[in-house]
């Protein structure tokens, strides 16, 4: 996007304008599955207020372009969730919210789907059990960055798995004193 001589003329490509519009009006389908849905509601409610980011929850999958999988996906609900995903118009994105949706979480049982990415492709994984509203907002902002990078023809650099800091293995930074 380029502004010419400050005369009120903006030069851009159609792709970029579309991408700008899409990433700033992400409409999620309001599908709540378990505990994470409560935190999702908190993200949408008065304090964190996702409306200011253009994120408005829609009741119908036909009107939405983001699916926030908030909560445990069990085997029984998995085909129905896939149906909802299939009903959403393209382009569409998926945020997997919380440990259960990402990898089964604390429920390695006969009834639980071990990761929603087994039935629908996921764009952003948000860790936490449940993730705080701040974490979900981070996930949404990350998705916006991803949409932007993709439309500009750049390769979106995902955080490599080996470098994700954990409590037991924090990222080692080089000390200025050489040890």
């Amino acid at each position, binding site marked *: 996007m380029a502004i010419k001589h400050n005369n009120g003329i903006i030069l851009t490509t159609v792709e970029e304008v579309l991408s700008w519009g899409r990433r700033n009006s992400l409409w999620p389908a309001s599908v709540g599955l378990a505990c994470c849905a409560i935190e999702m509601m908190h993200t949408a409610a008065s304090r964190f207020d996702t409306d200011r980011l253009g994120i408005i929850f829609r009741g119908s999958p036909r009107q939405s372009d983001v699916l926030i999988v908030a909560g445990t996906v069990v*085997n*029984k609900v998995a085909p129905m969730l896939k149906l909802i995903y299939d009903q959403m118009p393209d382009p569409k994105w998926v945020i997997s919210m919380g440990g259960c949706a990402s990898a089964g979480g604390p429920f390695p*049982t006969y009834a639980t789907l071990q990761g929603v990415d087994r039935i629908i492709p996921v764009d952003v994984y948000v860790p936490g059990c*449940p993730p705080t509203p701040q974490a979900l907002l981070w996930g949404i902002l990350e998705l916006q960055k991803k949409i932007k990078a993709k439309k500009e023809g750049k390769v979106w650099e995902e955080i490599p798995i080996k470098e994700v800091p954990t409590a037991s293995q924090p990222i080692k930074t080089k000390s200025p004193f050489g040890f």
Partner: protein
Amino acid sequence: MQLWISQGEVESIKGKFPDILEERGDNFTSILINKKQLIELLTYLKEQLNYKMFIDFFCIDYPLHTPRFQGVYLLFNPEKKRRVAVKCWAEDNSLPSVINLWKGAKWSEREAWDMFGVRFEGHKNLVRMFLWEGYQYHPLRKDFPLEGYKDTYLPSLNLKEGETPAHNYDPYHTPLPSMEDLERTEKARIKKKNQIVLNWGPLHPGTHGTIWFLFDMEGEVVQECDIILGQLHRGVEKIAENITYTQFIPYTDRMDYISALCSQVAYVNTVEKLLGVEPPEKAKWIRTMMCELQRINSHLLWLGTYALDLGALTIFLYTFREREKIMDIIEGIAGIRLNSTYIRIGGVAKDLPEGALDVISHFVKDFPEKLKEYETILTKNRVWLKRNVNLGVITEEDVYSYGLTGVVARASGVPYDIRAIQPTDAYDKVDFEIPLGKVGDCYDRYLVRIEEMKQSVEIVKQCVNKLKDMKDDKYISTENPYVLPTLEEVFNSIEAMVKDFNLRIYGEQAPEGEIYLSGENPRGELGFYINSKGEGKPYRLRIRSGAFYNLQVFTELIKGKTVADAVVLLGSLDPVVGETDR
């Protein structure tokens, strides 16, 4: 406080049924009877001895015993405030159905069929409760593994070739139902007799989670209704049989996630009573205070979503503003906002941080004013009255027959409150009132919940006053051999380290026995039945969910009403799917 059937009553039963076997314990008293006389005994208990309230029914699996399965009925006498358990072996894998005595048994018998494969003679529509038709196994049987049988190839769609997966990853998965399976499940529930069968849910914003309603409708009027549960069935009871008592505490949060602390307290109290652990006085007061804060929190969510369902968006934003305050308080004390695993066996996880009591006392000072604000908007609102008054009237008979508890029972005028019947923690030392309704309609349930929030504020105030004097007291009784030592003790003494290791690896070696204890959740009575065989983990842990039984009455109340009323009715019953499905 003795809450089980008295010796005299058992003698009178023995006079009529000489074959019974009485098992008396401090925390559990049961009567074993043969299958032929079961219905006779239950009728006698219900009609003669006034054990007319249905609390729970569940099965236990003994693989080495013939017959293999044992059914346990829990009944309650509302006048004498006493419970009794009736046990019966399921000969030929079947038991007589008791739905003619108690309507509430319908779903629990379906559950027993689903989980154990026990049949019920005389049950009208014995279908699977949580899993789908066509599922081959009965998961709570002892020979079924926790992970299930992974026979479906279902790799991750995100995994690129040559990439290392981030977690312990198995491309094979337990079987998923097909859409045909789900259609078969739906068809098995309800036969179309009228114009149309309407599906509501499972992924609908109005269903408070993932409940799947089926309405058989004539025009706009619902004639027949059934509910499919299990869209959040995660196998919590199966998990409990495979992990230690302490490890199960986080799972109680994730069951009823709106009132996590209340669930924890109910569970931990049960385990403590089984182990004989006495928490310190300070921990008891902290628990009571946190429970009541959580109750306000839970009722606020109910109020917000209830009003939202009825079209009042403003209330939703207002209540979530107050909820954020309570969440911040809980986060400050426990470290986690929603599923705060704060309660431990023998006390609480952490001491109250400095300033916590000040924040709480400020909150309870402000809160009644906010509550008044909501009431100004809603209580005398014409639309609110038109949609709530005289809708879904629950009679006293229904309460006993369906085993309704919590606000739903109290709005119908039944003074059933576990905090008063069997006070745990500091509930016998605090002063509070139990609001009761007169009519038992949706409006009464609204009024009772609003009044309960006011009472909770009073309880929190009393707790804060008491806790101010207990600043330096102990918050966890680590001297007890069953209680995990604190982190400080582990780092500073070798004995504590050894104890910590033993408890974490082998679990709390609970004495053999049975126990049933319940807590007053915002959603009703949350009971835990633990059958211990002297191991580090429970042999059978049954969760008596209040929301599960409360939701059951919905199918009866909706008959002859419109779909618009279904939203109101469901909101006023306030189920949480995590607890109904477990």
